[in-house]
Structures are given as structure tokens and as C-alpha cells.
């Protein structure tokens, strides 16, 4: 996108809470969560060529870390840290969890790594249930601390009125998520354009050639795994703030399970593996669709019995993956580039 186009986009995104009601903002926030996670995965799978189905696990690590670091519950483990510190800590812990997986990640590559990473999802399912003193357990879960920035609470507390519109918890959270997404986007763009990004692509294209050029393949893989897990961890923090509860899954198809990992992979693939704007677009499709269909469900009248918005969205992104691989391996990013070329 050209630099000038950013300004209207930013203005619209900043102005939306003044016009949309809370349910729409919630939908938008959910897409932003998807976008942050998908940026991390597109760096790992697209830029560095390492498939991962463990994104759901790292989401859980981030979500749990935030809840534990900021938690003040009496009966659960909680350090009661400042929420900003807790957020930074959660991202750091997620990155470390990614590094801890490096002995495996460094030894297997590509598709093998995807299969190996499935192990983490199952491990997360078990740990989430077993470590009830951290996660609150499957039956009740635990409420995360409200996010606060230098004394400003991202909740309904106090009154803040901008242009005649009272900004309550949902509106405030929108701005927080927007900042986090912008930061994620900017950092990823920076990494891709520099020496780090080049070493990722070198490892993806040919490990032997990368080694010959002086790239430490193992370290690079561990590094990109850490970066991607940090993004997933941030998405995990955002998801507990969004749900306002941390609840470990009862089976492998929950919030932090296989389906979530696949959904994130779908975002990265649909957007075009390796493309950061593509990942954001993919998140709008994969996480936006179920939200928007739910908001419109009564108007549409499609959803009766077993046909739910989530099901329809799953069909759409399943089919989209197939179509992208068959007809446009570059995904939405490639389509976008082509449109731009046509115009110029």
C-alpha cells in the first residue's frame, strides 16, 4: 500500500468506535486478534517455510501467562503485576516457549515440523486441565485482570466522552487492540525487510545454501519460532481480554485447539503465505466471516438447525484454502498486487 493510502485507513479505523455499536466493535476486535496471530504464523510458515499447527498452544501460553502475571485471585496463582508488565511478560514467556521447542524445530523441517507441532496442541490441552491453579480449570476458568495503561482502565469505569460519544470498555479495548495490531504489523514489516527476514527466506529456500552464506540455520529457526510464538502469545492475551475469561479447553477443538491452529494457518494461506498485509486480510475473512454472519443471522435467515455461522465460515475457509493452492498460490496478496499492476 502506498504511504498516502494509510492515512484514510487510519482515520476510518480510529473513527469507527464513534459510529458502530458494541457488537460490531467486538466483531472487529476479533478480526484484530486473528490478524496479530496470523502475522506471526505467516512469518514462520511463509517467510521461513516452517509449517506449524501449534499456534493454538502458544495462544494458550500467552493467555495463561497474562492471567497469572496480572491475577489477584486468592485461590489461584497470581502475581498481581501491573497489566502492562503482565502483557509484556506474557509475550516474553510465549517467545521462550517457542525457543523451548527449538530442539525439535531445529531438527525437522517444513511439513514434518507441522506434524511434530501437533504434539504441543495435545500437550496444551492436558496442561490447561491439569494446571487448574494457573488456568482456573475447565469448569469455571478465571477472569483476567482488566487491562490498564498508566492508571487508565480499559473497562466501563469512569466517563470519557469524545465527540458526544461515551467511550466505554468495548470502545477503549478497540483502541488498545488497534495499537497492538499496528505495532505487530510495523515490527513484522521491519523484520521482513532487513537481514533477519533475508535469513528466514534463505532457510526456507535452501538450508544448505543458507549455511554456505553464513546463516546459522538452527538459530534462525529457533529465532523465527520465538517471534511467531510471541505473536501468538499476544493474540492469546488479546483473546482473554476479549472474552473477559480464560477457560482452558475441554477437548482439542476449543479456543486453543487444533481448529484454532488450522484457522490461523488458513488466514496465512488465504492471505498468501509470507505476506503481512495478506495475513491481515486472511484474518478478516477467517475470523470476520463467522462474526459478521452471526450479526446478520436473523436478517439472513439461513441459519436453521445444524447450519451455523461457524460451520458456514469453516466451509468457506476450507474451500478457500483449496482454491488458493489450486489457482493462486500467492493468495489475496498476489491478487492485490495484480490489481495494482492493472491500475498503473
Amino acid at each position: 500500500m502506498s504511504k498516502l493510502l494509510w492515512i484514510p485507513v487510519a482515520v476510518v479505523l480510529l473513527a469507527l468506535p464513534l459510529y458502530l455499536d458494541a457488537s460490531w466493535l467486538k466483531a472487529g476486535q476479533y478480526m484484530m486478534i486473528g490478524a496479530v496471530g496470523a502475522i506471526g504464523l505467516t512469518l514462520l510458515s511463509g517467510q521461513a517455510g516452517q509449517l506449524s499447527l501449534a499456534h493454538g498452544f502458544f495462544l494458550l501460553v500467552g493467555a495463561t501467562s497474562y492471567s497469572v502475571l496480572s491475577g489477584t485471585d486468592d485461590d489461584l496463582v497470581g502475581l498481581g503485576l501491573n497489566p502492562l508488565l503482565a502483557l509484556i511478560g506474557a509475550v516474553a514467556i510465549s517467545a521462550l516457549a517457542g525457543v523451548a521447542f527449538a530442539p525439535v524445530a531445529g531438527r525437522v523441517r517444513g511439513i514434518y515440523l507441522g506434524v511434530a507441532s501437533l504434539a504441543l496442541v495435545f500437550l496444551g490441552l492436558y496442561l490447561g486441565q491439569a494446571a487448574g491453579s494457573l488456568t482456573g480449570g475447565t469448569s469455571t476458568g478465571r477472569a483476567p485482570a482488566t487491562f490498564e495503561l498508566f492508571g487508565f482502565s480499559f473497562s466501563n469505569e469512569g466517563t470519557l466522552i469524545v465527540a458526544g460519544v461515551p467511550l466505554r470498555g468495548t470502545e477503549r479495548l478497540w483502541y488498545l487492540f488497534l495499537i497492538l495490531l499496528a505495532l505487530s504489523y510495523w515490527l513484522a514489516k521491519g523484520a521482513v525487510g532487513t537481514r533477519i527476514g533475508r535469513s528466514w527466506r534463505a532457510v526456507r529456500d535452501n538450508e544448505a545454501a543458507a549455511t554456505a552464506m553464513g546463516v546459522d540455520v538452527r538459530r534462525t529457526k529457533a529465532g523465527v519460532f520465538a517471534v511467531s510464538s510471541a505473536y501468538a502469545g499476544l493474540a492469546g492475551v488479546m483473546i482473554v481480554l476479549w472474552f473477559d475469561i480464560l477457560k482452558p479447553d475441554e477437548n482439542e477443538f476449543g479456543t486453543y485447539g487444533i481448529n484454532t491452529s488450522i484457522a490461523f494457518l488458513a488466514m496465512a494461506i488465504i492471505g498468501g503465505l509470507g505476506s503481512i498485509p495478506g495475513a491481515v486480510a486472511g484474518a478478516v475473512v477467517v475470523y470476520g466471516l463467522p462474526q459478521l454472519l452471526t450479526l446478520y443471522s436473523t436478517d439472513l435467515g439461513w441459519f436453521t438447525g445444524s447450519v451455523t455461522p461457524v460451520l458456514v465460515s469453516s466451509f468457506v475457509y476450507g474451500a478457500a484454502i483449496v482454491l488458493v493452492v489450486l489457482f493462486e498460490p500467492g493468495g489475496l496478496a498476489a491478487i492485490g498486487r495484480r490489481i495494482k499492476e492493472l491500475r498503473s
Partner: protein
Amino acid sequence: MTTFLQLMLNGLGKGAVFALLALGFVVIFKATEVVNFAHGSLVLFGGYLVLVTKDTVGWAAAAVIGIVSAGLLALAVERLLLARSRHADPFSLALLTIGVDVIITEEVVRRLGVSLPFIGDAWDAKPLQFAGVTLFRTHLVALGVAAVLITAFFLAFRYTTWGIALRAQAENPEAAALVGIRRSRVTASAWLIAGLLAGVAVLFIATQDFSGAGLSRGTHSIALAAFPAAIIGGLDSTAGAIVGGLAVGLVDALSTEYISFAFAKSAVFLVMLVVLVVRPAGLFGTRETTRV
């Protein structure tokens, strides 16, 4: 001691089923280097057809229908989707199978709704008493069926023209093409076999004895254990798939008994991680070397 014996037999019975799944998985990988993430959905699809036909045609005929349709679905996926993107690399094709998996699984699960039907009518929930030990008939039949199918597979793999063609293609696709081996046929047959084996496996998985849960999303997740089975044995080793399958079955049975039911699922995957760290290519897989 008797519990231990029982555990071993249960583990081997489960392992035999995982071996069938892993074998299909490995056959596809050998022929095309594609990791088939849609394996679980083939299992569900076969099981679903058994379910909808068994009331009208009887269980035995329904079982055959289920097995054949799982095979045909695999064939259709290969012919209609993968064969059309021959220039895509195995990585992209594996991603494609994830998309296929999502669609088939969601549709079957939607049709199943809240019902969790068992489909192993011929052997399910009919335990045998033998020398003071209770044995599940499902596991015994599974062991027998798997032994027959696996033997048949290896005989065909070793002695028939088809087996030679598949091994040649696995060894060197270009050279195989040069001597007149049809890549499309070998690939299609590999998918067909994998589908048929998945169709057989589901008859044992969706039973009271095996999982205590009927056909559902959980069946798909049990079928995912075929991944660690194949990886433990080595993704390109057919014999490894059998060993890996049995190992997964035993680990599952032992950790359920001695640690906890909840841990068993991750135990299987943890064993896989350990194997990967020690031997990245699996126990019997070909070690990948790079010439510079």
C-alpha cells in the same frame, strides 16, 4: 500380571488399527511426498456411510460400503484436486489437504449432530473370558484383520508389478517415468489404498471397546494418532508404519492405565517428540542428506 497382559493385548489391538492408518499415510507419502492431513476426514466419511446404510442393507454390507466409499473419496480427492495441481510442491499440496479435511469433517460432524453412534456391531462390546482375563473382541478382530491386510499389502508391495512401480516411483520419480511407469496411476492407487485402510480402521475406532465414544469429531482426533505412528516409524518406511502404529497403541494403553486418561493423548505425541529429537527421520526412515 493379568492386568499387564490385558493391557498389552489392548495396546496391540489399538496399535493394529493405528498401523492401518499409518500405513495408508506412509503409502501416500512414499508415492507423492505429500503429507495427507485429510486422513482423519476419510476415517469419518467411511464411518458415516456405514452408519447411514447399515439399517437398510445390514451391517456387513454397510461395512463394505463404508470401506469402499472411503477409498473412493480418497481417490476423488487425488484425481480431482491434487492431480490438477501437479506443479505445486508437496508443501502446498499438504496445505490443500488441510482445506479438504476441514470441509469433509465439518459436513460429516454436522450430519451426525448430537448422536454418537457405535458402528462396530459385529465385534463391539462382546468381551471374551480367557483364562481369567477379559479380552475385548474388537481388539482381537482388529489384530487379525490388520495382520491379514498388512501381510497382503507387503506381498503385493514386494512381488507385484504395482508394488515395483510404487517403489520405483518412491526411489526416483523421473527414472520411473522414463521406464514407462505411469505416475498418475501409481499415485491414484496409493490414495485408493490409503482410503480403503482408513475405512477399515473406523470400524474399530468408533466402538465401545476402542474409544468408548461413537462416531464424532473425537473419532477424527483419535485418527490423528496416525501422525505420530507414521513419524515414529519414519514417514517413508512401510514397515516403520507398522512398528510405529503398535508403539502408539501400547503407549496409549499403558499411559491410560498408569498415568491418566487425559494424559494418554499427549503421551503418544511426547514419545513422537522424543523420537524426533533422537532420530529426526524416525526409527526406520531414510535419513535426509544434502549434497553441497
